């Protein structure tokens, strides 16, 4: 499912932000136009997609956000919105009046939450997020991006109970952005991060909340016991993948995913279907993996990677490494 960027600016400045590079290279005035939205809905429907995933910047800052979401729903696509939850009160009220009756299977929000203590935000921003969570509770899946090893998840458990959010936490891991300095989890710290997540097992179970792993977690850094628990508790729904997500900008440019936003950027008009775009970027991912099987040296000979049970972590790590070496590799792996 590709992500469509409604805007290219955000009200927050999270230290781990993987959209930072892309947004710094874009104009904040670039917002998705109605003409482009109509084309994208047509394009996705032609490609057989059933869902429409909305991203930013902060997508709710789009002046026509509510109407556009309404339009996509009317076109018969189900919608997922990735948001910080920071919304002006007036706009939030309008959104509530528009979307409250829409079932959560048709419209859901993945709200990326920051720990108020470890990643402090202005009080007004925190209040705004709470207002959003209160308004859309059961439609919201909380998301959390891990960019330091001493993170805490307690506040999310509290939010889930307080605001009746979906009992699922989407856990992302901060990856490097090739060509840009950002805060991310170093390879040596992967294990610490995973162990920290698993230190919350008792709370996950007690509160009946399921963890969901976003892309780029390397399977080898989990113990067999941890993998067994994940399998038992989530029904084997977690993958250890890294592949083209496909992000589409307001100017109809296309790229593989945010950390790779400058890597072989194309225009959607160069493709006939989503499958074509996916194949194009899959080929590039494969080229990267020919040069480096995964983020660790052991990935090259890993039987689980051969079987595609693990994709060998996020390719952004490999691309960042290639940048710092002599350019002797396949030409596709360079920007």
């Amino acid at each position, binding site marked *: 499912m590709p992500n469509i960027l409604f805007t290219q600016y955000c009200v927050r400045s999270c230290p781990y932000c993987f959209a930072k590079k892309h947004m710094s290279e874009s104009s904040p005035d670039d917002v998705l136009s*109605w*003409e482009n939205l*109509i084309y994208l*809905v*047509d394009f996705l429907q*032609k490609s057989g997609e059933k869902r429409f995933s909305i991203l930013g910047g902060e997508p709710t800052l789009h002046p026509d956000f509510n109407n556009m979401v309404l*339009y996509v729903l*009317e076109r018969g696509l189900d919608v997922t919105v990735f948001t910080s939850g920071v919304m002006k009160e007036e706009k939030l009220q309008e959104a509530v*009046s528009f979307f409250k009756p829409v079932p959560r299977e048709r419209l859901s929000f993945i709200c990326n939450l920051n720990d108020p203590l470890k990643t402090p935000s202005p009080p007004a921003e925190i209040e705004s997020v709470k207002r959003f969570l209160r308004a859309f509770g059961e439609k919201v899946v909380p998301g959390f991006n891990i960019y330091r090893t001493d993170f805490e998840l307690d506040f999310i458990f509290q939010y889930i109970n307080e605001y009746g959010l979906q009992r699922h936490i989407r856990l992302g891991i901060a990856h490097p952005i090739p060509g840009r300095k950002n805060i991310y989890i170093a390879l040596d710290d992967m294990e610490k991060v995973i162990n920290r997540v698993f230190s919350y097992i008792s709370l996950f179970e007690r509160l009946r909340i399921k963890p969901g792993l976003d892309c780029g977690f390397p399977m080898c850094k989990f113990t067999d016991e941890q993998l067994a628990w994940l399998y038992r508790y989530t029904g084997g729904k977690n993958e250890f993948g890294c592949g083209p997500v496909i992000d589409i900008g307001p100017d109809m440019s296309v790229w593989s995913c945010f950390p790779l936003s400058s890597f072989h950027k194309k225009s959607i008009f160069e493709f006939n279907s989503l499958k074509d775009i996916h194949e194009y970027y899959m080929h590039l991912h494969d080229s990267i993996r020919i040069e480096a099987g995964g983020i660790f040296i052991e990935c090259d000979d890993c039987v689980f990677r051969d079987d595609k049970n693990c994709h060998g972590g996020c390719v952004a790590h490999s691309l960042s490494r290639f940048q710092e070496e002599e350019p002797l590799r396949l030409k596709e792996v360079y920007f």
Partner: protein
Amino acid sequence: MNPDFFVCPLNKKLIRTLRERSLVIKLDKIQDVGQAVALEKEFDFHIHCLQLETQTPLASIPFQNDWLDVPLAVYTPSLGNFFDFVEKLPLLRQINIRVYLPTNKKENYTNLQIISSLGITSALEFKKDYLDWELMTDLMTYALLPLVPHAPIDPFYYIANRYDPHKRNDYNSVYFNDFRFYLHLDHDGRVYFSHDDLKQGHYIADSIEELNNPEVEKELSKRYFRWTGFFLKTDGCAYCPGWRICLGKFSDTVKSIPGCSKFFSEFMDVIEQYKSIQRDKKEVWQP
């Protein structure tokens, strides 16, 4: 002369005299729809269409469930509040309606795409002093070469389905303004060739009964061959490849708003593509 349709105002006295005719009744209030339908039951005529010209945005027009079978041509200035429009969509999709939006608001080029993509048949109303040929090209391409099916947008769809490269292709019927099929009546029953003639008071007959008068026939013939006048001049339209569709409709704005020639030439290319797609569609035998 016996045209297919008469375009007339909602005037009981006049309509009473139009038995067995097919009428386009002009309304300026949506509330008059009920009255027009009632007249059809009272007198023996057929409603071809009710032409509503309103300043109310589409989203604010109070459409009603009991109009499902009434053919409506709604000329409205804009789409209006999007949420209200979406609320009305289930009903609008059932109503026999074509929505006309004018070119004097740029957003209407996009609004027509929105309306059409949501399943409502629509049409662009040309306002001569407000034409954006680039936006018109985008709309025309969207209308005829869509990625996924959507409701027709006229006059593009109308022309594309009737286009003959060896003939003149007139789309005035979309606006009830082609005198071969539509004649206009005023409250007193006087007959006019077109909407513009009606506005200027240039009538051709005092009543329908006079339409077979040889003088009217002569006037008709003169009107019919008026197009030849373009080719007596050695500028502009006489050399334009797009004339086969435009028929000189924009000759008076070609200098102030250039671009019509390029648009209509491109239109013809797109029609060829459209026709070739239609030809390539496999159709199985029909029982």
